[in-house]
């Protein structure tokens, strides 16, 4: 019985791989652990070893590229089976974990290649097709822009992995789990028509979800998704004005949850007609927040109405999840950063030479790294039933981003990887570049995932001396929350002196670490903040 071999996901961020070279010939007998192929990912090349034994049926040729999890070969029990699989592959190209729409291939003449919702990030579970960038039945070139897909975090324009006439299974607006069939590439336009004819109903999301590989078991790090939500829409109508729309347009809008006050009618009389609704839905206006509608219920006037979709929805869910599924608690203290600020001034004076104006946050990150070295368990996450204490420190940095209107905001956690290896200046430079990327929507998957501990500061925004109880960024065990420093009279060597005190909170998950290590961590952090020279360690 032939066993499929898929393109392995060799890196967290790997989407597709190219066969540089097969180390085995089609039909040869492969032995377990023997070198099988040189596979190139977006970043590196690997020599992969055979996971199995058997007569090897090669489907993906040297030089060809395919998505991870796609079948690229079979381990067969006999030479005959090799040829069977080779012949059968032209009529059916499903990944083993994905069911295709069975009837649709019957009337099709040529080979059909499945296209699944790509897993664009380690943490991605599902994606929404904001827009197909090609028309159904169109001949799509390889690498041409194929679709604008929104994940829980980012929005990508994905490129076509194939060349072929495209047949849609999922439609614009559909949200599909990763690895699930969303389109097929056909060899001819008539095959697209045949598939369309065979499908008795739009076959969006009929395929079952593939159980993902180990990549999905990695901890979901970021609590916050990326921007790409629909811009706020102001109503087209003046307050109290009647909506004029055809009955069909009204029904379509109602069924889709689209508020017709946002839609401009293109009929010469100004009436909203079907094509206007179709257009508005394609632009995602049914998700748009609205401002200034003047809507009134029971004497309460609405200033704005913001649908909790996209990033807001995920924030809402993740916050609840964090608070309800952990035993988190916050402790707060104040650290004397007078000396830290003095040290910082020396760096700031050398801004040009250093290439950056070193920030207080860079110091805080360095201090956290110091404290983690003393108390490694503070740098841990829960993974299944295990506490995983990490060796490298990937600092999650909570940043506020614009919301969909002038009233609301979004929240993202940028992740600076491997801060334990970085100097203060490097931290500052990398952090600023990271935040800039994320704010511009250019954050990569790594920029937004993989944190082991998170920094969430309200310094500069909150009132001085604010003591906070920040919410854990799952699956991190700990979160450090500094806030705005305040001048206080402190006792130093028996004398009262004015010192700059920074309030710091540490939220930790008591399921993973207890008050004793938590306190030790806080003490270590406190020590580093008050004695910045320790950060040289």
């Amino acid at each position, binding site marked *: 019985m032939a066993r499929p071999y898929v393109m392995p996901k060799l890196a967290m961020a790997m989407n597709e791989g190219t066969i540089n070279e097969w180390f085995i010939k089609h039909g040869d007998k492969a032995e377990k652990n023997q070198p099988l192929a040189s596979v190139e990912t977006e970043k590196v090349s690997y020599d992969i070893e055979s996971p199995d034994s058997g007569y090897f049926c090669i489907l993906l040729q040297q030089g060809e590229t395919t998505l991870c999890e796609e079948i690229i070969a079979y381990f067969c029990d006999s030479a005959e089976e090799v040829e069977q699989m080779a012949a059968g592959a032209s009529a059916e190209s499903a990944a083993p974990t994905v069911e295709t729409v069975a009837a649709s291939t019957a009337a099709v003449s040529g080979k059909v290649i499945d296209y699944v919702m790509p897993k664009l990030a380690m943490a991605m579970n599902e994606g929404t097709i904001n827009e197909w960038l090609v028309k159904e039945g169109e001949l799509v070139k390889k690498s041409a822009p194929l679709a604008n897909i929104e994940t829980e975090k980012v929005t990508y324009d994905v490129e076509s992995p194939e060349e072929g006439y495209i047949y849609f299974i999922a439609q614009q607006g559909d949200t599909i789990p990763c690895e699930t069939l969303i389109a097929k590439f056909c060899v001819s336009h008539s095959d697209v028509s045949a598939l369309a004819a065979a499908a008795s109903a739009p076959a969006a999301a009929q395929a079952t979800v593939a159980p993902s590989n180990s990549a999905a078991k990695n901890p979901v790090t970021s609590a916050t998704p990326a921007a790409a939500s629909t811009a706020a829409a102001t109503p087209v109508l003046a307050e109290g004005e009647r909506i004029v729309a*055809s009955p*069909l347009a009204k029904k379509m809008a109602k069924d889709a949850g689209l508020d017709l006050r946002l839609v401009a009618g293109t*009929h010469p009389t100004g009436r909203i007609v079907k094509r206007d609704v179709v257009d508005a839905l394609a632009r995602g206006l049914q998700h748009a927040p609205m401002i200034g509608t003047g809507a009134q219920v029971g004497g309460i006037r609405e200033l704005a109405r913001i649908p909790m979709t996209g990033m807001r929805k995920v924030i809402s869910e993740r916050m609840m999840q964090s608070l309800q599924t952990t035993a988190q608690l916050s402790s707060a203290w104040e650290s004397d950063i007078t000396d830290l600020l003095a040290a910082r001034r020396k760096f700031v004076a050398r801004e040009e030479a250093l290439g950056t104006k070193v920030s207080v946050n860079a110091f805080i990150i360095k201090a956290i790294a110091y404290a983690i070295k003393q108390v490694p368990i503070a740098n841990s996450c829960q993974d299944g039933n295990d506490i995983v204490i990490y060796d490298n420190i990937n600092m999650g940095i909570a940043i506020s981003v614009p919301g969909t209107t002038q009233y609301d905001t979004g929240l993202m956690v940028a992740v600076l990887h491997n801060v334990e290896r970085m100097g203060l200046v490097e931290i500052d430079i990398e952090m600023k570049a990271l935040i800039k990327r994320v704010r511009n929507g250019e954050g990569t998957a790594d920029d937004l995932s993989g944190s082991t501990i998170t920094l969430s500061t309200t310094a500069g925004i909150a009132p001085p001396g604010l003591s906070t109880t920040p919410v854990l960024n799952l699956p991190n065990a700990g979160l450090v929350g500094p806030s705005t420093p305040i001048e206080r009279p402190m006792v130093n060597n028996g004398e009262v002196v004015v010192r700059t005190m920074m309030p710091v909170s540490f939220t930790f998950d008591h399921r993973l670490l207890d008050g004793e290590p938590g306190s030790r961590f806080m003490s270590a952090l406190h020590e580093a903040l008050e004695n910045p020279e320790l950060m040289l360690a």
Partner: protein
Amino acid sequence: MRELTYIQAIREAIQLEMRTDDKVFMVGQDIRGGVYPHTKGLIDEFGPDRIVDTPIAETGMFGTAFGAALEGYRPIVDYMFGSCAFVNFNESSVMTGQQYFMHGAKSSLPMVMTCAVGLGKRIGNDHAMFIHSTFCRQPGIKVAMASTPYDAKGMFASAIRDNNPVMIPWHTGVMQKRGHVPEEQYYIPLGVADVKREGTDVTVLANSEQLYNVLDLAEELAKEGINIEVIDPRSFVPFDLDTVLKSIEKTNRLIIVDEDWESCGMASTISARVVEHGFDFLDAPIRRICLPNIPIPGGYMEDYTRPTKERIEATIREILQ
């Protein structure tokens, strides 16, 4: 393929029914000689007892049919002109429609009423007016109009075999249209509309001479990529609403061409029913193209008071905006 004119097709339907059922007879004024071709010469085959001329006495003429129908005959009353059916309207509409129901749904009244209607000859209101909408009002009478020779023969035959009163006028403007008509007797059921041309962009309902206008227009507009779906309702009572609804589910737009006055015509009833049952399919208001509410002028004005191809085309373009 054998062709007949529309009026010849009617004649053949009557002739074949009269041959197979000796209870079928025709009564009218001057039908033995045949003012119109559909009765010409039938006297030679069937004799004066079955092709019956009466004095100019609509009640007497109609009553011959009405009473005979209750006594087991299957009469066809020929009013010659549609408006004449209004002379004894109390009998042709009220008494005819109410007969079966009011008397306990026991004995039926199998009679056919026919007459010429239609504009185009500049003969004025009394000879040209359409009567179908008015006959649709009294429940108990079926009302139909055939547009093509093929439909005419099949529908007249069905009307004669129907056990109910059927008013089936014919438009003088289509009487010379030629078309394929099979030689044998065949029956087209009443109450069934016919999609005469499939399309996607707008549904246009049209009957009799207007159907030909609309079909011509469909050919021309198709060259521009405008594809209209043309439906001939064929019957007004019973009316095949399902075919129309199915069509506008696809096209989302409806135009009704009815060569009858705008006020209280069948176009209004169809329009109301479509709104009641197909509201959510409509992307534009339903448009009726009817005669203005003016007694039909006999002069040259008749030409532009009728629905014209230009008017229909303009309406199609408007509805597609």
